[in-house]
């Protein structure tokens, strides 16, 4: 009995392959986008973990130069000779066979606490780095790719993929480092009586180091949210497909039950059938997700490098945990999507019959429930944002608003279409709107998916574009000097200064020191009083006489991150006693900053000297050429303002390329949802279209109306997506961004972008409707006549 029942159920799918494809594709896409994002997150986390192990000395203090430059071998030797137990580390990117690897060179003999193989805290140095067997240690999968490098390679299962370990001498040769040391690892067991650390250096103890995981958490939360949104879009498709399949199989269910199949067995069969589809689609989705992740990972790596300086490799490892979580999500998603259909099946009267408006009537009956659920989602989102803190509040609000708005969509569209129907002048127009309203239940899931995709597009692109506009303006303000000069030594500063003073319109030194504010690390700057800053500095809030007060040493400026973190406003007092005179924007920097006058800075940090200078000049190219010629400066010592802006903007654009890719993917999924829904509905539409055709409309006219209908519904959905998208943008800018990055961005509107998105959506809707419309236009008359046939 069960086998016969299953066979009867399955026969529906063989006769409706498009519907089966809808279900599998929707679920596979949902799982793919979700598991792809999870794959990226897992890979990034693995990279952070790897960065925190012995290779980066994550648990150990680091010694580096105050000016941020790399150390020389001489400096290292001097420190060792003075008694400091430090060990050099060099890091860089090694490319082999088109793949980038992060190569870390360490010095095993001086590594804190141990000879090779021993451990200090988490620091364990593997063997095989020295002597005749000295080699580059690599994950076994990576070792095969490194056959071309000019060094022996040894497979080591203890390595993370994409990260290589070598003796520093070997690393120096491979990276062409020429004696460069990025930082020194400081042994926790320093001898007594060592001299003070020279002022040119600083030590970052573990609690002071930048915690990449914490900083990047917000980024990964963003990605996870996008993954969930995409998953939701996919689940809408699955919901639509299972609902339509239920409607179409009403007669089969009724017949099976009439023939003696108990309801419980029928439910079991339908559940087993959906479970099978979930597993197949889930497996396909995880595999597809792997491909998506592999395609997006380089952009994600660029984003993380650009935003936080976090290094992750552009490689992906297929993990079992993804398969399991991906399949679990597919099964859970199917269960959520199918529960309504299963409830309807359980409640379906044995003698129920199918008529053309069944879905429409049922939808009308459940509209008030839908509205209540939508209101509950919105209220839940608002409640979370009120009760919770941080990013959870922001994303809770977003989820509630988006889902609430999506559920409201069929109700709103139905009301609009009803209004259009009552206002329609001609018979065709009236039928068109009435028929559109009747089609709504079948299309509503796809339209909800479109609404979410469009709102996400508008929201995210408004945020990114607002960010870009603000960032560009900010760069114009902060990079107001035409040239930026970096010199290597105080002696060189003294040598160059007379030339600079006589040839530049103004020389603006950049001098800074490490500080702490509110228990967290911050950077303090000394600012020379100059019109350049008075005219250009990007102040968000300030006292009226801010610059005069600052020049007089009566207070400090702080960046927005510090102000938000410590809840400071102008007039408040910092822990060091300085009064906050103003707050400035400081995009792209996660740390707090304090700016005081140059004189005050010098009095507090007498040893700190400026090695970087902003130079004001009308002739930047000529001044740069003269400086380079006269002082034999390296190429990177002088940076042109325009180059710096271009570089910053390119980093910015690359940073958000992954967001753009996800936007396009989500919109594509929504387009696919419309196409598949229309194809599925096409067969159910014949009893609705055949009478109109018989009464005097051609198939071509009907096909044209089908196209117009799809585009009209997309337009209506798009119009509703605009306010929702702008609301989303506001939450992203005013809530999520502040929590994630510590700064709030002004919101700008970009009508041209919205029009472009609108045009893209219309094209997507048109293309999605084109195939079903062409099929209708070319449909043989016999197919339509079969609707009326007495011997059907």
């Amino acid at each position, binding site marked *: 009995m069960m086998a016969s029942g299953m066979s009867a159920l399955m026969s529906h799918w063989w006769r409706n392959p498009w519907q089966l494809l809808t279900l599998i594709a929707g679920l596979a896409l949902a799982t793919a986008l979700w598991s792809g994002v999870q794959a990226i997150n897992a890979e990034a986390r693995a990279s952070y973990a790897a960065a925190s192990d012995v290779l980066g000395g994550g648990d150990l203090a680091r010694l580096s130069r105050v000016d941020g430059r790399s150390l020389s071998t001489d400096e290292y030797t001097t420190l060792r000779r003075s008694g400091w137990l430090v060990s050099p580390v060099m890091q860089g990117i090694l490319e082999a066979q088109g793949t980038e690897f992060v190569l870390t060179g360490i010095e095993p003999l001086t590594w804190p606490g141990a000879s090779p193989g021993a451990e200090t805290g988490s620091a364990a140095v593997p063997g095989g780095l020295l002597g005749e067997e000295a080699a580059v240690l690599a994950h076994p999968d990576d070792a095969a790719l490194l056959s071309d490098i000019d060094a022996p390679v040894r497979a080591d299962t203890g390595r993370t993929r994409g990260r290589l370990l070598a003796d520093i001498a070997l690393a120096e040769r491979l990276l062409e480092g020429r004696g460069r040391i990025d930082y020194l690892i400081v042994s926790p067991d320093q001898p007594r009586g060592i001299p003070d650390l020279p002022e040119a250096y600083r030590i970052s103890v573990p609690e002071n180091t930048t915690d990449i995981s914490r900083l990047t958490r917000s980024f990964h939360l963003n990605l996870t949210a996008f993954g969930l949104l995409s998953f939701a879009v996919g689940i809408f498709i699955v919901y639509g497909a299972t609902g339509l399949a239920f409607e179409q199989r009403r007669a089969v269910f009724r017949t099976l039950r009439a023939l003696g199949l108990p309801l419980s067995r029928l439910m079991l069969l339908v559940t087993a059938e959906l479970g099978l589809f979930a597993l197949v689609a889930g497996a396909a989705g995880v595999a597809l997700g792997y491909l998506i992740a592999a395609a997006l990972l380089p952009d994600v790596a660029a984003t993380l490098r650009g935003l936080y300086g976090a290094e992750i490799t552009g490689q992906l490892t297929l993990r079992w945990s993804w398969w399991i979580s991906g399949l679990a999500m597919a099964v859970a998603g199917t269960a959520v999507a199918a529960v309504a259909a299963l409830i309807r099946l359980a409640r379906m009267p044995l003698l129920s019959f199918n008529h*053309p408006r069944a879905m429409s009537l049922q939808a009308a009956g459940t509209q008030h429930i839908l509205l209540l659920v939508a209101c509950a989602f919105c209220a839940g989102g608002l409640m979370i944002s009120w009760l919770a803190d941080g990013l959870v509040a922001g994303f809770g609000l977003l989820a509630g608003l988006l889902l609430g708005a999506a559920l409201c969509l069929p109700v709103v569209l139905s009301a609009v279409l009803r209004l259009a129907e009552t206002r329609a002048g001609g*018979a065709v127009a009236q039928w068109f709107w009435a028929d559109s309203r009747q089609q709504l239940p079948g299309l509503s899931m796809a339209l909800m998916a479109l609404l979410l995709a469009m709102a996400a597009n508008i929201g995210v692109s408004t945020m990114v574009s607002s960010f870009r506009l603000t960032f560009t303006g900010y760069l114009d303000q902060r990079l107001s000097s035409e040239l930026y000069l970096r010199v290597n030594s105080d002696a060189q500063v003294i040598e160059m200064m007379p030339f600079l003073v006589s040839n530049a319109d103004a020389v603006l030194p950049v001098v800074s020191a490490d500080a702490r504010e509110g228990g967290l690390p911050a950077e303090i700057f000394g600012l020379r009083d100059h019109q350049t800053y008075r005219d250009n500095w990007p102040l968000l809030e300030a006292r009226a006489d801010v610059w005069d007060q600052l020049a007089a040493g009566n207070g400090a400026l702080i960046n927005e991150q510090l102000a938000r973190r410590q809840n400071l406003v102008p007039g408040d007092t910092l822990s060091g006693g300085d009064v906050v005179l103003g707050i400035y924007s400081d995009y792209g920097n996660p740390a707090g900053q304090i700016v005081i006058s140059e004189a005050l800075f010098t009095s507090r940090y007498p040893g700190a000297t400026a090695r970087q200078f902003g130079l004001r000049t009308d002739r930047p190219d000529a001044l740069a050429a003269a400086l380079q010629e006269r002082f034999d400066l390296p190429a990177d010592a002088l940076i042109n303002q325009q180059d710096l802006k271009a570089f910053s903007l390119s980093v910015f654009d690359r940073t958000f390329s992954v967001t753009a890719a996800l936007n396009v993917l989500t919109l594509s999924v929504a387009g696919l949802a419309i196409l598949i829904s229309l194809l599925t509905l096409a067969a159910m539409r014949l*009893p609705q279209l055949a009478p109109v055709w018989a009464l*005097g409309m*051609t*198939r071509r006219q009907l096909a044209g109306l089908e196209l117009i209908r799809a585009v009209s519904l997309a337009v209506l959905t798009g119009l509703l997506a605009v306010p929702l998208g702008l609301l989303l943008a506001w939450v992203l800018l005013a809530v999520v961004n502040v929590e994630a990055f510590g700064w709030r961005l002004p919101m700008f509107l970009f009508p041209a972008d919205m029009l472009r998105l609108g045009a893209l959506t219309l094209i997507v809707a048109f293309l999605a409707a084109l195939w079903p419309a062409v099929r209708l236009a070319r449909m043989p008359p016999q197919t339509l*006549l079969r609707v009326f046939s007495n011997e059907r």
Partner: protein
Amino acid sequence: MNDPLALRVSGLTKAYTSGGAKVPVLEGVSFSMQRGETLALVGESGSGKSTVLHLIAGLDRPCAGSIEISGVEVAGMSDADSAAMRRGTVGLVFQQFNLIPSLTVAGNIAFHARLSGRNDPDRNGELAARLGLEDHLGKYPETLSGGQQQRVAIARTLACRPALILADEPTGNLDEATADRVLDLLLDTARDAGAAVLMVTHSARHAGRMNRQLTLSRGRIVQGRAGEAPDQRQPA
């Protein structure tokens, strides 16, 4: 339009291709109808009755033969012209799925007339009243009984004043009493409107109420005369 014939069918031939083989459905069917005449087309299932109606309505194309409605050749018409002819000259009543499910009863009655540009709300109201539909005008088709739905289809057909009504088993789904009432209404209102009625039916009793009968078997007319005059039921 001065042709006394409402319909002239000559040598109508139709075949379908099934599995690569040609299956003949109609072979040289010829008959004519005068204005206001009622004609029953009877025959066993698969004899080609409905195909004759579909070809006359321009819903399908014949392989050979001629079809003239009110003196206008329609057999070779384009899709658009056929559609225009259905909007203006021909009214159709099927056994089922006649009505547009998304429109109310009032919307369905007016739909065809509005398409043909002959909508007359007063006439629609009269027809609705005559067919006993005045209390159902705001309802949707699925809330009506089968008989009520067929009455709506008849009202819709007559609202656009067609010269020829093609009815394909309009009472096939109805019980005997309801079927009789519906047929009475169809014939009475058609007579008052001066429309010719060509009806496909399996019911000998209903066929007997028409002016004439033609019997089709395996695609050929085997009984009845092709051009008999209407009886006294026809208006002068």
